[in-house]
């Protein structure tokens, strides 16, 4: 065992000293995962704010307060524009979801909803954006009623409004329908008296009385998709790192033979199995290390939050077993490093293509996903995703992990049997 460990440590040291190998093993997968994660994030537009343009013809402090209220929170991103035509154009081109027009006089009505009725606004929206339209209407209604809410929760403001309304009623005189003016003259002083008796200060006003009593019981929604694009791109990055390990150590094994060090190792009193076990151990450790590094990076930088760490560990270990076997098989494909490297990468690239290492499997048609089952890469991705966001149970993990271990054992056995120890051509 000590000899195996020494052999593996030697290989790790060689890898660390080889700058190109080191880059492709550790940095390339991180770049890959980050890059594609970013690209997919842009496309998915997951839970980002709805962008709208606002044309404010009123331009009063009240109208500005309305827009502020609308933009509060992270659901809407409001950009003020002067030019109505340009705003319409932005909607037509799909650059913003909608254009909101506040007419002249909006502010006055907004401030005095009881005296003058709720203000009118116009929302211009692409009819195909139904979901966003619904959400926008909800947000607008909320902001519009905000002024009413303000009044109800502030006795002083409510009192002032009642006084102003009474004064306006007096001014208007006979212009107002006597029936309505009579009713208002009865209602408003009564409201005034009520308001005067309302408690002042925090929690006062009608707010306490109006606050709805809602008990919130959280029920976690079943997730059937990745939380973010990085949960797709990081399993892929891990696969590329593992492919790199398999290719790298496969070539290193061929190199030992062509450089004569394999012969020297065989002359020493270690057994052939120890020599191969050393290489396998180095490949296994590096593979696990690459996966760990990527997951750590994804966790810290991109918020990848695996659903189950224990299952993820199992998935990584099984994937490493598979790739150790593949490494051993690659090492018998070519006599020279160049041949082994060329043939090896060709095979690995096809594996990656079929197995969803390049284009995520769920983007592919079903028949292609089925063909992908012959590729170990598919099972690696499947197992990793199962633990990260598919929410697999241990029983569900059994299939991909079992397939991976089987692939590893079979390819390793074939690779060891076919391995040629002499450098005879």
């Amino acid at each position: 065992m000590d000899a195996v460990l020494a052999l593996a440590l030697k290989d790790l040291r060689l890898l660390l000293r080889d700058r190109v190998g080191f880059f492709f093993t550790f940095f390339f997968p991180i770049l890959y995962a980050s890059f594609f994660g970013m690209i997919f994030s842009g496309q998915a537009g997951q839970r980002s704010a709805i962008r709208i343009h606002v044309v404010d013809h009123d331009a009063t402090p009240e109208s500005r307060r309305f827009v502020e209220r609308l933009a509060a929170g992270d659901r809407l991103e409001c950009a003020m524009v002067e030019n109505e035509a340009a705003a319409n154009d932005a909607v037509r081109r799909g650059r913003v979801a909608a254009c909101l027009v506040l007419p002249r006089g909006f502010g006055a009505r907004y401030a005095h909803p009881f005296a003058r009725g709720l203000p009118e606004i116009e929302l211009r929206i692409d009819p195909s954006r139904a979901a966003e339209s619904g959400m926008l209407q909800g947000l607008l209604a909320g902001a519009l009623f905000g002024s009413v809410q303000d009044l109800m929760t502030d006795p002083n403001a409510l009192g002032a409004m009642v006084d102003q309304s009474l004064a306006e009623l007096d001014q208007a005189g006979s212009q107002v329908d006597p029936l309505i003016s009579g009713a208002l003259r009865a209602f408003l002083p009564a409201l005034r008296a009520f308001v005067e008796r309302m408690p002042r200060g925090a929690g006062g006003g009608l707010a306490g009385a109006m606050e709805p009593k809602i008990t919130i019981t959280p029920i976690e929604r079943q997730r059937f998709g990745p939380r973010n694009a990085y949960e797709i791109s990081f399993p892929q990055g891990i696969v590329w790192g593992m492919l790199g390990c398999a290719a790298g150590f496969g070539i290193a094994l061929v190199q030992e033979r062509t450089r004569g060090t394999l012969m020297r190792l065989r002359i020493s009193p270690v057994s052939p199995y120890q020599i191969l076990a050393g290489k396998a151990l180095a490949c296994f450790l590096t593979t696990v290390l690459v996966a760990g590094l990527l997951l750590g990076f994804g966790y810290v930088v991109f918020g990848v939050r695996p659903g189950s760490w224990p299952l993820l560990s199992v998935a990584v270990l099984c994937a490493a077993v598979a790739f150790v076997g593949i490494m051993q098989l690659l090492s018998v494909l070519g006599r020279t490093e160049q041949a082994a490297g060329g043939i090896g990468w060709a095979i690995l690239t096809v594996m990656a293509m079929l197995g969803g290492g390049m284009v995520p499997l769920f983007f592919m048609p079903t028949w292609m996903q089925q063909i992908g089952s012959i590729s170990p890469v598919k099972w690696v991705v499947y197992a990793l995703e199962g633990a990260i966001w598919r929410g697999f149970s241990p029983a569900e993990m059994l299939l991909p992990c079992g397939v991976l271990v089987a692939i590893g054992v079979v390819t390793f056995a074939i690779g060891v049997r076919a391995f040629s120890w002499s450098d005879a051509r």
Partner: protein
Amino acid sequence: MLAFHNVRKAFRATVAVDGLSLEVRRGEVLGLLGPNGAGKTTSVNLAVGLLAPDQGRVEFAGGSPQQAAVRRRMGVAPQSLAIYDELTGEENVQFFARMHGLRGAPLRQRSAQAIALVGLDDRRRQRAGTYSGGMKRRLNLAAAIAHEPELLILDEPTAGVDPQSRNAIFENIVALRARGVTVIYTTHYMEEAERLCDRVAIVDRGRLLALDTVRGLVAAHGGHSRLHAVTERGEHTIEADDPVAELNRLQASERLLRFELERPSLEAVFLNLTGRTLRD
């Protein structure tokens, strides 16, 4: 201590080693001298258990070199350099010493001694990839001796080496022999064999043609010595088994001005044995 008993090894149609029988004695430096393709490296590979003979057997210290425990007592510096360019000289030597079972303080100590012996002390912390050809050869040797083998097998240890490194390697071998190490040394340079080896085995086309001390080989197969003498009467070139007798005979009749004696070399031995020169 190492014996070949009628060993034969063929690669398809090529018979690389053909009925080889020889015994290496403890403490000697045995040269395996032969032209390219004579079967030297194949013999070495048989000796260290990398190849199994088709016929006959190889014996070392009462066992077969195909057993790991037996191999532990051997050291080999392969003809093709077998070191890791990315590791430093020291790391190379320590790694192979560890493969031979050394650990801890003895590992470090003996590795350092081996490196010092081949004169790479000042470069030991640098990567082998930065070494010159001669330095790599010396490192190749150091990696074979750190575990202090009883039998050291050197396959063309001076191939592609500058005269300085070559002399250093010769001195190393002399020093190792002085410690009682048995050495097998393959080469196709007869000067090396003449200078270093206690006995020389001449091989060609997989066969052992002769095995003896250099003196014995020359006496048996070298043919006549050649005497060039200049006397008052003129020049004489005489081929003779006993040049001293010829010299005395000449001097009795004429006054000798000067003479030169050309003794037969291993080159002549090889020529007489095979009808070809070593470098054919």
